[in-house]
């Protein structure tokens, strides 16, 4: 039986070979994408795991003195920045030889030593010392190994100190062991005696990324699956005829299933080999693309043995099952296509999964979202999945309904033919455009969510006048991260301020003096924020930070500039305060704003001076860098979405073209007869267009609606914000997508002309 099946699979002539090749390619593409998605998820988890040790300060420590043989390690973690890239800085002081050692290095750095990641070591060597290396006391003792680094681009530094230097500083804790498991996000339960801040460089939270990558994988794979289904149905009529002939001479149903299964398995095996090949070829280039913000080490994009076995076994099995399923209709009769009844029309119950998905998401609006991120994944993923499946299931019913409506109102013959054919077999019609519909849904959801996300941020625009102002909080008061621990008293003297002012490119310095009780409202409808006092003389030199009222000498000014909408800072007139200017210097300085001309030199030098003056506080960031950081996650999602949408559209376009071509080939004779008996080519063209356009428009409307509904529900439950309508770009893009479909349909017109020529209607 198997040799016969193989012969049937391979020997079928040009039409069958085309079909086999298309199937193999489609399965290959799908397998490659699946493997990439799995490897991506593995890589993200590995990345997160590699940064587990940075959470050492948050993990729970056993009470009491350290066990025998264990010495404590003083641990302090802060963030640094260079040219817009984050640097994670860990300051450690070992109290004994048996103190725990972070991964990637052989021993703890002593005072005057530091270890840096290879990328940071390269920067340290390459850049002028007064821009970077002067921040770190001592000299480079070695590089940090790969095991401790999330990414080849990671900038990490471990600086050694004496215990006396670290023990009494704020945000420093003693630890007896290095954290080895990633806590899965900022959990509420952390060491009450430990740090209340997390490592500054946070990957996209892994469960969140799992959700995102799973949705991405689903969104890319679904059009590929639809393409596979369409390719499988190519030359379906001929294959049915062939199977019917075999049934006539006595093939049992099981034998027919076996043949179909062998056919599918051959295609699946070939496709799988291609898919694996594609993946291993592209693994290294793929790893260097920063999907999650940072590139992967190639080794991180790996597949476990279980992954490989599951895919290698799963795909042929799925193919065989699908083949079995697709053959149901032929199982019925050895008389094959000679006597084929009209397939049953789709029933209204098909709307149920779609409605179920939407109500599942609504449930979480009412009920409130689950507490943990993994709980959120479990909540939203099924809902979104149901909506996606619901669209596919409901599609034929929507197509049939639209077709019946068109049939009632059709005046011209072309419309009538199209409407009747659609109403007769809506499944086939919907299958052709289902990929596009899904792409529309995904686009709608993604764009709507992203624009809503933008609206929840306080600022988006990077080109604000204050972009080049370095802002530094010297006490941390007013910043949301810090809580509970006593803040260090503000420094009262800033002797090195003259050095800062002397850096080429620094255009002014505004000191914000402490005033414990002062709050102001910088934006008219915004919140009250903690504020300090500034000298109007200093403020006058930095117009991008606003102005004082006329005649005032001292004004109130926010301590943390990121609480003000960046675009508005320059236009604000700060409220005058009745404090004489000469009383200011005695107060502590809560924050410092250094205006620069924007050159990297000036910014980094100023940063270095401030960092060396306050080595254990996070160095200042420019307003522009803060905005960019806030947008980083959004931009990453945007990038992923673009990839998904583009891939979906390309694959869906191929599916549409293949479907139309197959439909035309199936109806060669009826169409040529129509032409011979006087129907114009234009009428036939109108039929072809309507057959695709009607289901597309009917289901697209529902898909877009469902997309907005799903996004709105997710937004109001997860982001606690009502949906913001997307900008003009979305509407243009959607229109372009639909226009692309029309172009694809029109591209099949030459085929229509050729295959309905008179020679097709010969009686041989």
């Amino acid at each position, binding site marked *: 039986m198997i040799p016969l099946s193989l012969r049937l699979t391979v020997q079928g002539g040009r039409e069958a070979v085309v079909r086999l090749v298309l199937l193999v390619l489609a399965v290959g593409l799908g397998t490659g994408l699946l493997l990439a998605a799995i490897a991506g998820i593995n890589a993200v988890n590995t990345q997160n795991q590699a940064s587990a040790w940075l959470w050492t300060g948050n993990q729970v420590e056993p009470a009491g003195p350290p066990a025998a043989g264990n010495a404590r390690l003083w641990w302090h973690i802060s963030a640094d920045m260079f040219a817009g890239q984050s640097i994670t800085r860990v300051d450690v002081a070992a109290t004994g030889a048996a103190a725990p050692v972070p991964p990637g290095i052989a021993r703890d750095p002593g005072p005057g030593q530091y270890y840096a990641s290879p990328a940071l070591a390269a920067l340290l060597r390459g850049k002028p010392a007064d821009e970077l290396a002067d921040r770190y006391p001592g000299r480079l003792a070695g590089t940090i190994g790969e095991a401790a680094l999330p990414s080849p681009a990671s900038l990490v530094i471990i600086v050694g100190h004496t215990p006396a230097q670290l023990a009494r500083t704020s945000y420093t804790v003693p630890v007896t062991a290095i954290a080895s498991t990633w806590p899965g996000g900022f959990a509420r339960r952390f060491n009450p005696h430990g740090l209340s801040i997390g490592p500054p460089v946070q990957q996209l939270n892994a469960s969140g990324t799992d959700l995102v990558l799973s949705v991405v994988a689903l969104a890319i794979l679904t059009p590929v699956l639809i393409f596979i289904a369409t390719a499988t149905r190519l030359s379906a009529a001929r294959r049915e005829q062939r199977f019917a*002939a075999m049934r006539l001479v006595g093939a*049992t149903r099981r034998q027919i299933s076996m043949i179909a299964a062998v056919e599918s398995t051959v295609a699946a095996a070939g496709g799988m080999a291609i898919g694996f090949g594609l993946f291993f070829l592209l693994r290294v280039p793929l790893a260097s693309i920063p999907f999650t913000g940072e590139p992967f080490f190639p080794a991180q994009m790996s597949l476990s043995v279980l992954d490989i076995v599951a895919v290698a076994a799963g795909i042929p099995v799925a193919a065989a099952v699908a083949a079995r399923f697709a053959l149901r209709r032929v199982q019925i009769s050895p008389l094959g296509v000679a006597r084929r009844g009209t397939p049953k029309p789709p029933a209204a119950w098909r709307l149920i999964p779609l409605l179920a998905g939407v109500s599942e998401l609504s449930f979480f609006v009412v009920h409130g979202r689950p507490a943990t991120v993994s709980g959120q994944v479990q909540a939203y993923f099924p809902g979104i999945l149901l909506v996606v499946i619901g669209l596919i299931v409901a599609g034929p019913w929507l197509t049939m309904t639209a077709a019946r409506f068109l049939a009632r109102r059709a005046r011209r013959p072309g419309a009538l033919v199209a409407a009747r054919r659609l109403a007769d077999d809506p499944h086939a019609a919907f299958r052709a455009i289902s990929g596009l519909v899904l792409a529309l849904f995904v686009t709608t959801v993604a764009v709507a969510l992203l624009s809503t996300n933008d609206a929840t941020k306080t600022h988006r625009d990077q080109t604000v006048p204050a972009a080049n102002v370095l802002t530094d909080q010297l006490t941390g008061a007013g910043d949301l991260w810090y809580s509970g621990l006593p803040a260090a008293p503000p420094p009262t003297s800033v002797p090195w301020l003259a050095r800062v002012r002397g850096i080429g490119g620094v255009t002014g310095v505004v000191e914000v003096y402490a005033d414990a009780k002062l709050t102001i409202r910088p934006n008219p409808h915004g919140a009250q924020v903690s504020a300090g006092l500034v000298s109007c003389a200093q403020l006058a030199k930095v117009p991008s930070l606003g102005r004082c009222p006329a005649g005032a000498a001292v004004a109130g000014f926010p301590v943390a500039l990121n609480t003000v909408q960046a675009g508005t800072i320059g236009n604000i007139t700060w409220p005058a305060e009745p404090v004489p200017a000469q009383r200011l210097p005695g107060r502590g300085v809560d924050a410092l704003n250094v205006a620069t001309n924007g050159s990297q030199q000036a910014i980094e030098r100023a940063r270095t001076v401030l960092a060396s003056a306050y080595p254990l506080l996070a160095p200042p960031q420019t307003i522009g860098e803060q905005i960019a950081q806030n947008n980083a996650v959004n931009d990453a999602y945007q990038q992923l979405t673009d990839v998904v949408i583009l891939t979906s559209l390309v694959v869906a376009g191929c599916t549409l073209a293949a479907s139309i071509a197959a439909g035309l080939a199936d109806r060669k004779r009826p169409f040529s007869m129509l032409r011979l008996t006087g129907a114009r080519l234009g009428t036939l063209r109108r039929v072809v267009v309507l057959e695709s356009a009607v289901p597309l428009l009917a289901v697209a409307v529902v898909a877009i609606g469902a997309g907005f509904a799903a996004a709105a529900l997710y937004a109001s439950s997860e982001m606690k914000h009502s949906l913001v309508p997307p900008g003009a770009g979305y509407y243009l893009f959607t229109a372009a997508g639909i226009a692309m479909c029309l172009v694809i349909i029109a591209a099949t017109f030459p085929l229509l002309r050729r295959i309905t020529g008179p020679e097709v209607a010969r009686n041989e």
Partner: protein
Amino acid sequence: MTILQAKDVVKSFGQTPALRGASMTVRQGEILAVMGPSGSGKSTLLHCLAGILVPDEGEIWFDGQRLDTTTDEHRSELRRDRFGFVFQTGQLVPELTAEENAALPLLLGGARRAPAIAEARAWFGRLGLDGLEQRRSGELSGGQAQRLALARGLVTGPQVLFADEPTGSLDSVSGEIVMNLLTAAVREQGTTVVLVTHDARVAAYADREIIVRDGTVSTLTGVQP
């Protein structure tokens, strides 16, 4: 001796009744012509007799066993091993060569390829198909295709050959060749033939005829069909 029998067979397709109480017998070794106007149900009767369709009511008997109540698998095996089929068109598998097509029932029955092909080739000479062993069915003329179908129908040495308009798409010369070969082969093997045709000259090759009119079976002379 009766080899095939239909008793009060009723079969409808949707709303359309094709057979309404058809009864007839087929004697072993005879060539029986089933005639009647188009749409009368003759092909449906043949399909029911051959186990391709299951009647809605009534009984089909083959060689002492009920055919209409057995499983689809059993009926498939009967069609493979004990029946042969020559229909008007469209029963050859385009992906297989001529000799593979002819050997198909043997291959489906689990025979190894070489002996099955050899068995099929034995028929090629008798049916004037020499030299065509490796051709695909699409490359054969109508007459050649029907003779190939005949080879396939006879390759298992069947007890009954079912022919439905076997010369319907052929010109008169090719048709006569096919009918001559068919009758010579079945006479030699003692095969029973059920031959559906509306063509009197084709029916003239049979030993007797029955008429299917409006879903029932009768004869021209009033004897039992």
